[in-house]
């Protein structure tokens, strides 16, 4: 384990695990300084920003990447924009969809159309859009209960999500999951978990499957998994267990921390011994990066790098996005503990406004085009509500369905086929 980190910037730990002897070759590919931060920098000295503590863990470095954009502009005068027009409009549309959808959820909740626990994502759209828009269909997303926008960014239709929230049978889970349990096999959204920390091992498992497919089944598989979770989760045991195993086995996963500083009413600073979450990555042997989560372009740059790393088989990354939720923890949260000054401060850093400003200043699109997008999304969301309203509630017989994948029986029957009938086993005392 060489400690020569002075000129070489990033050398993620080459873990010689017995499981993947061939992967040790990939370590040599990582010695170029530009391998982690921003794609085009050749000369990049980050000695200023390396925290002295990170030297402890061999050569893995944790950096703050708010310098990325600035340096990029300096070294690439020819095309100093981070996105093309199409990308810009795509990002804008996705963030507007997230915001409009969540605002509509709040309205519907207060009108009684939605019920239970609903957790809104207002203010954090940059993280979801910045990361998920870089994924392909086969890549997986695993989230927590604040999962509406992750599902939307991944491609689940707005009407399916809205119907699910209304508890109708046309929802993405036919009304059986609810706000906190968005699953979609088609778009590879693996949930939607109510317990914080529960989704992280599941995401690690999906990444494990990707690696297994490549190594044991010899398929051509480079699917990446993104695990989204919050600052409160970073104190949970399952988080650390998975950081360990993901780094140990070099799994293709990116751990995305949406640090919005508050876990219901518990401030991150009151709950955590060392509040800088990105530092926990190098302790396990993976890069830890901190990024401004209110700026979708910065998030996108970091995401590109982390996802590419994972796809190349170089292992996991921990990305801490500093972000903020404009609304309370859930729609039932009176949100009394947060300082109004703090809320006002973050309101000025609204990611949608920031992107709009960037797009207009750099003449990527006109005001008219952006307004057209806003109108289109408004219509999409309204149509989703109408669709959900008109959809039927689940039939009574749906109560007992889908407890098992093999719902009408299981095991082998007398005819030797894998099924035996036992129709009453799930009924209990329900009157169908």
């Amino acid at each position, binding site marked *: 384990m060489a400690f020569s980190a002075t000129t070489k910037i990033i050398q993620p730990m080459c873990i010689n695990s017995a499981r993947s002897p061939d992967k040790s070759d990939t370590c040599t590919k990582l010695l170029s300084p530009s391998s982690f931060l921003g794609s085009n920098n050749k000369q990049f000295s980050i000695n200023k920003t390396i925290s002295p503590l990170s030297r402890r863990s061999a050569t893995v470095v944790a950096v703050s990447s708010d310098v990325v954009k600035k340096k990029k502009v300096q070294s690439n005068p020819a095309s100093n924009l981070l996105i093309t027009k199409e990308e810009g409009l795509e990002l804008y549309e996705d963030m507007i969809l997230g915001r409009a959808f969540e605002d509509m959820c709040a309205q519907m909740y207060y009108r009684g159309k939605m019920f239970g626990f609903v957790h809104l994502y207002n203010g954090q759209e940059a993280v979801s859009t910045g990361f998920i828009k870089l994924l392909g269909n086969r890549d997986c997303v695993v989230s927590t209960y604040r999962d509406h926008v992750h599902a939307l960014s991944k491609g689940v239709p707005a009407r399916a999500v809205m119907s699910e929230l209304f508890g109708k049978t046309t929802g*993405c889970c036919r009304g059986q999951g609810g706000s906190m349990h968005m699953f979609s*096999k088609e778009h590879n959204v693996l949930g939607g978990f109510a317990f914080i920390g529960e989704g992280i*091992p*599941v995401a690690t498992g999906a990444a494990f499957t990707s690696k297994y497919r490549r190594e*044991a089944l010899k398929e051509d598989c480079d699917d990446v998994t993104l695990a989204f979770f919050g600052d409160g989760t970073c104190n949970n045991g399952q988080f650390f267990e998975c950081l360990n195993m993901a780094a140990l086995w070099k799994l293709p996963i990116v751990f995305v921390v949406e640090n919005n500083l508050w876990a219901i009413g518990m401030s991150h600073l009151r709950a955590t011994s060392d509040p800088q979450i990105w530092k926990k990555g190098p302790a396990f042997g993976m890069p830890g990066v901190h990024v401004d989560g209110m700026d979708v372009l910065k998030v996108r740059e970091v995401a590109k790098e982390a996802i590419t790393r994972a796809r190349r088989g170089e292992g996991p990354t921990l990305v801490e996005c500093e972000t903020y939720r404009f609304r309370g923890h859930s729609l039932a949260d009176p949100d009394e503990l947060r300082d109004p000054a703090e809320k006002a401060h973050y309101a000025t850093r609204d990611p949608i406004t920031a992107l709009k400003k960037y797009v207009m200043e750099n003449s990527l699109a006109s005001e008219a085009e952006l307004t057209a997008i806003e109108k289109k999304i408004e219509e999409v969301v309204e149509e989703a509500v109408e669709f959900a309203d008109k959809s039927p509630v689940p039939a009574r017989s749906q109560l007992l369905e889908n407890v098992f994948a093999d719902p009408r029986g*299981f095991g082998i029957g007398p005819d030797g086929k894998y099924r*035996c009938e036992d129709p009453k086993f799930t009924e209990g005392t329900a009157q169908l």
Partner: protein
Amino acid sequence: MLRILGKKLGATGFTALPAGLALRSYSSSAKQMTIREALKSALDEEMAADQSVFLMGEEVGEYQGAYKISKGLLQKYGPERVVDTPITESGFTGIGVGAAFYGLRPVVEFMTFNFAMQAMDQIINSASKTNYMSSGNISMPIVFRGPNGAAAGVGAQHSQCYAAWYGSCPGLKVLIPYSSEDARGLLKAAIRDPDPVVFLENELLYGEAFPISAEVLDSGFCIPIGKAKIEREGKHVTITAFSKMVGFSLKAAEILAKDGIDAEVINLRSIRPLDRSTINASVRKTNRLVTVEEGFPQHGVGAEICASIVEDSFGYLDAPIERITGADVPLPYAANLERMALPQVEDIIRAAKRACYRSLPMAATA
């Protein structure tokens, strides 16, 4: 030939035969197989047949299995398919769940099911509920296996029986073998099943050998999930049991037979779904019931069976149902106390006699 086979083995409830099975003679000397060999052979065959089956757990690889169940599998299938994990039940169970979500068929081994309590969230919340919550979108072909229940002198934290806990959860299938035939057939069925299965083994039974017939060795051999087996037919009292208690019940039945009480012993095999029809049919025949289990009494498997019989066959009962369970204490360490805290053959005999004395005295009263 198949019909004769069906009649002969009809009592066992097992009729799963691959179509092309050659005719064999069954009167040949019975082979013996330990539970350990049965489990290992089942795992081996299923891993060979389906590439997406893999084994994951503590010490399953280089240590050859904490109880040597997975001996030789690492050498045969390699470290990608026999995965040694760090001591992180919650984490690696979740990894298994995520892998099952995304298309593989993991077998997650717990060193004992006591340790699985650290992974309860993943087993119950993720594994058992997801097929329902996603309305059939995302299924969970996973098997959680490991030793369950008391061993010898391992203390309270290593000895709990979890049959009742897992048995109460919708979305899980819970299997609990007794003999080698059970172990092999049920584990194969569990691995092939598209749903989460909790497979409760017993450490003390691992080394015990049982006679098995030739078709148990066939690689297509599976036992239906949800069907109990009548190990011994009888007329006077029904004894239901699972795991090690089946052995004790059979011994008790032999002793009871000398007193003229002909006990019918049912090996439950499947806690969830419980084979209520077999138990009810048996009680309607014998009119008396003794349930035997090693776990704690309150909310146990015996309680569920009692409720089921009362609901369905109340009129057929000639005596109150007797429950034999472990003592309502964390299991003590001292050998004599441990013996008192777990059901023994004498307890089963006493309960069966009590069940038989409540109404008309039988011919062989003492």
